[in-house]
């Protein structure tokens, strides 16, 4: 044994002592420096889940509002804004729930807040009610005419463009600009009051377009004509042509 130890070179002995010291220091250091709850659930501090869950809330949630403001809550839920949470317009209000007298939620006024959602933007989905603020009763504050908790228009809209801005904008620059909407869509007066329940009609047959565009039609000569029997008889016209902006201009 002694002979074997003597055979080991001096530098190897010293280096191995150093290695042992380094390993021991590493083990002690990791055991001291690693937080005690590290690795209990996964490769992270288990208590940080708790830290994340302990953060302070700001938004109370609309069910909380209904506890005190039940009348307003019912009005809102019967109107077009039924899907809106109160705090969309009134801001984060958990402070108000805890101390109702000290913290008051905001009430947006003027003409800047409502257009955040309702200003006309071509990227918005069709059918979403949009206005052009520059031409829509300039300088009048929205809430003088519209009750935000029941935003049915005070007057029933006269023009289709009040709600269908995108379609009417497209149609106004097309060769169909002079055709009134009601020529193709039979619209009952009730559609203006409850639009989703009384839907306007749409043409169902290709002969409808043929009234102007067939070879036999007695319409103006400048209108493009097609042969109704040979021109793609398997399709209805609006499967290829968009009637609000027909491509032939």
């Amino acid at each position: 044994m002694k002979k074997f130890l003597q055979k080991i070179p001096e530098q190897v002995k010293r280096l191995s002592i150093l290695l042992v010291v380094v390993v021991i220091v590493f083990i002690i250091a990791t055991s001291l420096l690693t937080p005690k709850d590290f690795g209990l659930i996964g490769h992270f501090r288990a208590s940080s889940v708790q830290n994340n869950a302990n953060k302070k809330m700001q938004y109370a949630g609309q069910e909380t509002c209904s506890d005190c403001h039940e009348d307003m809550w019912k009005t809102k839920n019967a109107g077009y804004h039924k899907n809106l949470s109160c705090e969309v317009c009134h801001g984060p209000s958990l402070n108000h729930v805890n101390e109702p007298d000290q913290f008051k939620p905001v009430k947006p006024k003027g003409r800047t807040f409502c257009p955040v959602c309702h200003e006309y933007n071509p990227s918005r989905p069709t059918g979403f009610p949009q206005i052009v603020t520059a031409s829509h009763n300039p300088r009048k504050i929205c809430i003088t005419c519209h009750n935000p908790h029941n935003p049915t228009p005070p007057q029933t809209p006269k023009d289709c463009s009040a709600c269908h801005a995108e379609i009417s904008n497209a149609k106004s620059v097309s060769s169909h600009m002079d055709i009134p909407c009601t020529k193709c869509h039979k619209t009952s007066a009730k559609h203006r009051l409850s639009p989703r329940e009384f839907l306007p009609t749409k043409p169902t047959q290709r002969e409808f377009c043929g009234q102007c565009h067939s070879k036999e039609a007695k319409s103006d000569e400048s209108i493009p004509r097609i042969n109704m029997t040979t021109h793609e008889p398997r399709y209805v016209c609006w499967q290829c042509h968009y009637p609000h902006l027909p491509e032939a201009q």
Partner: protein
Amino acid sequence: MENNISQTDKKVERRSFLKKLAILALAPIAFGFLGSTDKLKTIKKWMLENGYVPNNHKWGMGIDINKCIGCGRCAVACKNENNVPQEPFFFRTWVERYRIYEDGDIQVDSPNGSIDGFENWRTNKKMLRSFFVPKICNHCENPPCVQVCPVGATFKGEDGVVLVDSDYCVGCRYCIQACPYGARFLHPETHTAEKCTFCYHRIVQDKLPACVEVCPTQARVFGELNKKASPLVRFLRMNKIGVLKPSLNTEPKVYYANLDMEVK
């Protein structure tokens, strides 16, 4: 005879020595094991005190692009709820506008993360289609940000939510570079990584995340992924669903309905 006795003594000595050695070696392991299970119990207990056990949940979000109106209320609510710095370019969630023109040109913009609204520029080019895309941390099943964190300061919890341990984060920014969705940022004051947590402090109390709470058109749906009665499962059943960058195999838990192929 004497010789014989001394031999048996030696044998006993060896056996007891080996026994002691084995006990000595196993004792710290056993003690460590007992200690850690004890700690695990206390953590589980905390979870139960709040009535929330992460194991019982798996959270996800659905976003219907056809419903988004680009009002940016989600981004505002998120900043209010989570103390995100108000200046631009710090967002946990934001909305992008995609405009695809007939000549194949694609414009994507998100001025101040949609908070200030989107302006309509007049161009002569004809629009083919246009829509808004809300963006958020995808809470990937295989999160690249968690893989690269050198200290274990970001992690996927048992409920599938990817969280940041801001006390343990060293602010090396590696996770920000690793995220393929650009969903992370460095908080300018704490200098730690920040990201969407699905409003973890709200969901443990059975509340909706702030962005889902305020979305005026219900474009965002939040719920359980493995409970059939959840609104999210219904959303996944009723719509054609896509996820962002599926080729990366990150397996996002934010599901988009009516997703356009141009959305990256």
